[in-house]
């Protein structure tokens, strides 16, 4: 799937789209940035509550394509700015990690566990 398909999730609000054709091959949930660094796959969408610019730095360093800030957390203005600079697409949602991940999984064509 690509970033554009994430915009079809009605619970996701797009704050910034870097490149709508960018490939999203996987997903990851995590609020521990060290864990995200160590384990998030490249070209993934990350579900997290860490709504600050260090998350963008981590995403950029490990090659995360898009972020979904969960639980309705407010994105700091400098985070949005950093997302633009680093060209990482940024979404917010009122869903929690689990619910957001289910939406992403459905788009990825997964759902073995019946999440669809």
């Amino acid at each position, binding site marked *: 799937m690509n970033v554009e398909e994430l915009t079809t999730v009605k619970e996701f609000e797009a704050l910034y789209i870097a490149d709508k054709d960018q490939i999203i091959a996987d997903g990851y949930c995590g609020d521990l940035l060290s864990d995200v660094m160590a384990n998030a796959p490249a070209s993934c969408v990350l579900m997290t509550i860490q709504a600050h610019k260090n998350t963008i730095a981590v995403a950029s*360093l*490990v090659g995360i394509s898009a972020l979904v800030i969960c639980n309705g957390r407010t994105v700091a203005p400098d985070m949005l700015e950093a997302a633009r600079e680093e060209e990482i697409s940024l979404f917010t949602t009122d869903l929690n990690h689990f619910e957001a991940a289910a939406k992403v999984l459905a788009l990825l064509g997964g759902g073995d566990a019946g999440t669809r």
Partner: protein
Amino acid sequence: MQEIPINTVTSANVVLELIYRLKIKDVMSTALITATKETTMREIQQIMRQERITGLPIVMGKRLIGLVSMDDIIQALDKGYIEEKAQDHMSSNLIILEDDMPISFAINYFDRYRYHRFPVLNKDKELVGMITNRDITNALLIEINREVEELEKRSHRVEGGIISEEMYTYYIMQNDFENAGHASTEIKKRLKSASIAPQIVRRAAIASYELEMNMVVHSTGGRLIAKYDANELTITAADSGPGIEDVDAALEAGYSTASEWIRSLGFGAGMGLPNVQSVADAFDITSSPKGTTVTVTITLASGEENDNER
């Protein structure tokens, strides 16, 4: 054809271009100290001493009418007319330069006439500055430096793939979350531009980011040094204290001394150093109250197909 002390056919274009592009008005000093024809030679001598200059232009309004040099002062002392006015003893047969001539003219004049300074006039024949060899040397140094920087930047971009003996130092400040990640981003960019395999770039990014974060969170500040050569990247994180009390514990996953606030930002989960260790090809840590130094080596060409494109 004027003479300048470099070969105009084979010399580097940059330097030639500079001495033709830079105008005398870009280089001359415009803070003029002048005297009039009524000023006595004695007064001129005192001005020269106070201002530490060796020649003083004599003006009438903005018009240059003469010049009194140290040599003229010595003559005046020798021949006993030091109390007399400048008008009778100044040099009035002057060699001047114009402000929009290229500095190649000035270089040529200094070579030809052996004077230490030349007055500079504008189109309206008004005195607008003085030029010395020092002015030219300084201006050239600054300009050459700028040009070389530009060239270096360009050659980095062109070379891209080749890394050899490069070293960069990044200064990390305590609690500077704002800029945390800068060094790692630079390192990542450098490796990418050298077409290093993505998996290796990612390992380097993880190691440098964790080390950078560690210094931001735990230390009183320090340096992150990235040293590249053809086969490996060495990252050294050296901080100025307070040191890690129990290094063995710090290397265990889950051990953390971070504050609640740091944890709420998603750091300080006790995964930093273990993460670094797991991505490093070689890892070393020493710590004392005076500071902690972590050295990480990442092999750049480990058979993970990174040079079959060239």
